[in-house]
C-alpha cells in the first residue's frame, strides 16, 4: 500500500467484555467464551442475531507440544459462531505471531469492505495442565534440531538473549527493569478482572527474585492464564447509533522478520530494524508517529519488549528506554510521563497476549475506564508481540 489507510476512522469498536482472568479455569474455555461474547454483544447494545462476522486468532501459545482442542484449549471463530447459534456470513482466523494486530486487521478490513456489518472479535487463552513450556523431547527433528540439542529452546531463553544484548550494549540494569515490572503490576492490581488484582509487586520483591535465564526472572514473564476478551466492531456510522462512545480505528501496521536465523533466534538488531520499518508503515498509513500518540500501550509478554517498542516508536532515543523507566518516565500516575503500560499489560493482567493493550486503548478512549480514567486522551496505540513478528493498531475517539 502506498498511501493512507482509506478506511481511516470508518471502523469502530462499539463494545467489549472481559472475563475474569484466572490462573486455572474450573470450566471449559468455550463456555467462558460464549458467555463473554454474549456480554460484549449486549454491551454494544446489540442482539446475537445482528452479529454476522467472527474474527479471532485461536493460537494456544504453550510450548510444551500440547494438542489444541477447539472449544476446550482454543476457541475458533467458527466454533464460537456455531455455539452462539449464529449462521455467520464471515468467520475467519489469523494464524501467526502478533495475533491481536493480525486478527484486528482482518476484522477492520471486513467491516470496511462490507463483508460483515457487526463483528464479534475475540481472543480466548487457555492454560493447559502441567508445566506450560516444558518439552520432553528426546529427539529434536525439523527446525528444533538446530537449537534443542545445543540447549536452546523456548521463548524465555530467546528473550533473555535479546535482553542481555540490550543490557550489555546500553548498560541497563535489573533496577531499571524493576521499575517497569512494578509499574505493570501496580496498574494491573487496579483492574478487577486481572489475575493480579489487588496484588502489586515491590521493587524489593522483584530484585530478590532469583533469575531463571539471566538477567530475567519469572516476574519478567507474563503468567499463563485462562481468560476471554471480546470486542464488537462495526462501521463508524452504525456505531454512532449505539450506546457507547465509539472508538475509531485509525489504521494498523505489522512487522515482519528481516533476518533468517534458527527458530526463536530473535536478535536486538532485527527487532530494531523491523521496528523502524513498522514505524514508517504506521506513519504512511495513519499519519501518526509514536510521539503523536497520547496512550501508547506497549507489549510486555516479556518485560524487555517494552524497551524495544519504546525505542522503535521513537518515545525515547535508542538505548534510553531503561533510563526513562528508572527515572519514573513511564509512571502512569506521574504528570508528563509516558503511560506505556497504564493498562497493566500482560505482566499486570496475565498472559492475555495483546488484549490488555487493546482494552486499555478502548476503555480510555471511550471514557469507560472508571476510576482509572485519564484526561485528554484522543489517540491510542495497542502493540502486540515484538516488532519483527507483531504489529500495532491505532485508535482515536475523534471521527474523521
Amino acid at each position: 500500500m502506498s498511501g493512507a489507510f482509506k478506511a481511516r476512522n470508518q471502523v469502530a469498536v462499539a463494545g467489549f467484555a472481559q472475563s475474569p482472568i484466572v490462573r486455572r479455569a474450573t470450566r471449559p474455555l468455550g463456555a467462558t467464551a460464549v458467555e463473554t461474547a454474549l456480554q460484549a454483544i449486549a454491551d454494544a447494545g446489540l442482539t446475537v442475531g445482528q452479529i454476522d462476522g467472527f474474527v479471532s486468532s485461536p493460537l494456544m501459545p504453550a510450548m510444551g507440544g500440547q494438542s489444541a482442542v477447539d472449544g476446550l484449549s482454543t476457541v475458533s471463530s467458527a466454533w464460537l459462531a456455531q455455539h452462539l447459534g449464529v449462521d455467520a456470513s464471515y468467520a475467519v482466523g489469523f494464524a501467526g505471531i502478533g495475533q491481536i494486530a493480525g486478527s484486528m486487521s482482518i476484522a477492520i478490513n471486513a467491516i470496511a469492505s462490507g463483508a460483515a456489518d457487526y463483528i464479534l472479535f475475540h481472543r480466548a487463552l487457555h492454560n493447559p495442565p502441567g508445566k506450560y513450556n516444558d518439552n520432553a523431547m528426546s529427539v529434536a527433528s525439523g527446525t528444533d534440531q538446530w537449537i534443542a540439542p545445543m540447549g536452546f529452546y523456548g521463548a524465555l531463553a530467546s528473550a533473555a538473549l535479546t535482553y542481555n544484548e540490550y543490557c550489555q550494549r546500553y548498560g541497563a540494569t535489573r533496577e531499571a527493569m524493576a521499575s517497569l515490572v512494578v509499574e505493570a503490576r501496580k496498574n494491573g492490581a487496579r483492574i478487577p478482572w486481572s489475575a493480579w488484582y489487588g496484588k502489586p509487586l515491590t521493587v524489593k520483591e522483584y530484585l530478590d527474585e532469583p533469575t531463571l535465564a539471566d538477567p530475567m526472572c519469572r516476574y519478567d514473564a507474563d503468567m499463563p492464564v485462562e481468560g476471554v476478551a471480546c470486542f464488537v466492531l462495526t462501521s463508524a456510522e452504525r456505531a454512532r447509533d449505539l450506546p457507547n462512545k465509539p472508538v475509531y480505528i485509525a489504521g494498523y501496521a505489522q512487522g515482519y522478520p528481516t533476518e533468517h536465523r534458527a527458530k526463536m533466534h530473535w536478535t536486538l538488531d532485527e527487532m530494531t530494524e523491523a521496528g523502524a520499518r513498522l514505524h514508517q508503515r504506521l506513519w504512511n498509513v495513519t499519519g501518526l508517529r509514536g510521539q503523536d500518540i497520547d496512550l501508547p500501550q506497549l507489549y510486555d509478554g516479556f518485560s524487555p519488549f517494552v524497551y524495544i517498542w519504546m525505542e522503535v516508536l521513537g518515545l525515547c532515543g535508542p538505548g534510553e528506554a531503561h533510563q526513562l523507566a528508572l527515572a519514573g518516565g513511564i509512571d502512569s500516575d506521574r504528570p508528563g510521563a509516558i503511560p506505556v503500560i497504564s493498562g497493566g499489560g500482560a505482566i499486570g493482567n496475565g498472559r492475555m497476549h495483546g488484549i490488555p493493550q487493546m482494552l486499555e486503548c478502548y476503555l480510555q478512549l471511550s471514557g469507560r475506564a472508571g476510576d482509572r480514567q485519564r484526561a485528554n486522551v484522543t489517540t491510542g496505540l495497542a502493540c502486540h508481540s515484538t516488532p519483527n513478528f507483531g504489529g500495532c493498531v491505532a485508535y482515536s475517539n475523534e471521527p474523521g
Partner: protein
Amino acid sequence: MGEAVQHRALPGTPGGRPVPMRDEQSSAFWDAAARHVLAVAKCTKCGQATLPPDVTCPHCLTTEPEFTFEPVSGRGHIRSWTIIRRSFLQGFDLPFVLVDVELADVPGLRMIARLLDGPAAKLSLGLAVTAAFEDLTADCSVPAFRLESAA
C-alpha cells in the same frame, strides 16, 4: 577435544538430552559435527552461507539452493549470552551458559549454543570464542563454544 557429558539419562532416551534427528538436508552438518567440524550451509547458486539451511536461500532467494555444507574455522565472538537456571528441555545439568555467537568466517551469521567454560566465566560482548563439541552418543556430537583465551 570432545567434552565428556554427564547425564541423568542417556541422550536421545526418555529424560535425556535431545539428540538431533538427521534429515536429508541436515545430515552433512551432523556428519561434520561428529568429526568435530563446524560446517555452514552454502547456497550453490550464490555461494553465500547460512545456518540453518532454509527452504530457499535467504540471500539470493533461489528456490533451489541445493545447500552444501562447508567447514568454517569455528572462531567467532560473543553477541549475547544468558545463564540458563531453569531449562524447558530435559537432560541438561543446570545452570549452564548459552552464547549467541557471530562466526568470524561469515559476518552476520549467528548461532546459539552452550559455552563450556561454565557459569563462573567472566563474559563481555565481543569476546572471542571457538567451536567445541559435546559428544552425546557414539556417532552424535553437537556444537558448543569455548572462550578462546581458555582454549
